[in-house]
């Protein structure tokens, strides 16, 4: 039970270390390919830049999502709720590739357009989880908190956020997994990541590279999901 969440992480690590040695295997699987193993950059370097991309987008996404979610649920924040709803609708409707396509002419190739797309995409689940979780705090508890003489800030930090924390963390977990999977798209705009072998494989007609990039991206998403799941569970268990 304790080890189960670590299993995907272990699998990802094993794949990362084993893949550079699997050249002959891929050669046998894809006999038509001249260069069966992606060697332009090490998989470890690609993983690190992928992880950086995810972290660099997740932090602003969490801050924006939780911040907007809190602002939208404050009493008397009607306009705020409208803005948040509009943002959610926009982020839902536009796929990340489209955001990258729109961003590239404005900010150029590289990491920036990918970051913009990732932040847009990862904010949504956090925002949704935050507004949903804050709405589930019982009105009697809020009434008692107000009646006890808590200021709005004290209510937020001592009562509302602690009670809403488990679903918000679950939303962060969803956002993280989404970000890992979506970050691969960043390779389209030239960001170095686990999507790079996929794009390079597609461009050069090399299916072996596509498989290598896809397997690592998928396993990394599983690993992040497992690790964050292990983090979220003890938190929700401590607040029955």
């Amino acid at each position, binding site marked *: 039970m304790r080890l189960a969440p670590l299993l995907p992480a272990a699998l990802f690590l094993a794949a990362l270390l084993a893949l550079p040695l699997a050249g002959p295997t891929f050669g046998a699987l894809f006999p038509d390919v001249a260069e069966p193993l992606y060697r332009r950059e090490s998989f470890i370097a690609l993983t690190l830049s992928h992880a950086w991309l995810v972290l660099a987008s997740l932090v602003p996404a969490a801050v924006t999502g939780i911040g907007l979610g809190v602002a939208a649920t404050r009493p008397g924040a009607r306009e705020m709720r409208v803005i948040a709803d509009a943002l959610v609708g926009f982020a839902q409707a536009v796929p990340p590739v489209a955001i990258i396509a729109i961003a590239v002419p404005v900010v150029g190739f590289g990491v920036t357009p990918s970051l913009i797309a990732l932040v847009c995409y990862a904010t949504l689940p956090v925002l949704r989880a935050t507004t949903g979780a804050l709405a589930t705090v*019982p009105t009697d*508890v809020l009434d008692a908190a107000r009646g*006890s*003489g808590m200021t709005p800030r004290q209510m937020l930090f001592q009562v509302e956020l602690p009670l809403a924390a488990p679903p918000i963390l679950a939303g962060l977990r969803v956002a993280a997994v989404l970000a890992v999977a979506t970050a691969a798209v960043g390779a389209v705009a030239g960001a170095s990541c686990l999507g790079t072998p996929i794009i390079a494989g597609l461009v050069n007609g090399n299916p072996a590279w596509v498989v290598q990039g896809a397997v690592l991206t998928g396993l990394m998403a599983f690993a992040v999901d497992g690790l964050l799941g292990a983090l979220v569970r003890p938190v929700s268990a401590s607040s029955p």
Partner: protein
Amino acid sequence: MIRFEGVRKSFGGATALAGLDLVVPEGAFAVLLGGSGAGKSTALRMINRLIDPDAGRVLLRGRDVAAEAAPALRRRIGYVIQGIGLFPHWTVARNIGAVPRLLGWDEKRIAARVDELLTLLRLDPAAYRDRMPAQLSGGQAQRIGVARALAADPDILLMDEPFGALDAVTRQALQQEMARLHAATGKTILLVTHDVEEALSLATRLAVMADGRLLQEGAPRDLLDAPADPRVRDLLDGGAIGMRRLSLVTAASLAGPTGEAPAALPHIPAAATGRDALEAMLAARAEAVVLLDAAGAPAGLVALRDLLRA
């Protein structure tokens, strides 16, 4: 002392209070009685500024409540609600200590106060202080709710249908507990209810409301005997006005000398109500009942016809 002066409030188009004038004397156990929509909860929640009036003012010891910042005001006023609203992520001790913590008491003083209040509400501190609210029964949770409201030793306690969600036995136990707490602490208590029995058994001052107005205010017995409005009579009567009158007097106030009471007569404590005396007579099929003082000695005799004086 709490004073409402011409207080009006409407929500959207609906009028909740249509000019309320009411005085709650210092140290009273005042009950606001009325049906739903009478405006009684709205009135109560104006005292700690959970609702602000559209017009008129609410005075606490002569001072307009609007003159003070709402959080500071609320920390001086105990507040108990039907839904209890214990903070589910905090222990019983942390819940009770909520207001003292807001006031910046040190931990030692808070811990001592928590144990004192648990004892006052007849809960063993060692067994309860570290429990989570989910581990409490409804009655225990509301005892903690009352303890939390009393924690910072407020002069005034506001209670909004506090026992409405509890079963009959638990409700009665907590009602007796509140009467005892009121007698022991002398705090001004304002309780809102739609339950006539509850109102009559607890109130030293009874205020009946309907349609956002005060219909009548006074000692419960005066309202029973001389209702100023047909709606007051209808509400208080409920087909049981005789029994209600009986439940407002002590058996001792109806008693004559013991004389040579037959040993077979039933016994009740002298502090019991006239209603208890009638119940004891009916139960034993006897025409009189003997009152016993605290030491268990006969202190008087109530005969069936004595009850007519109630």
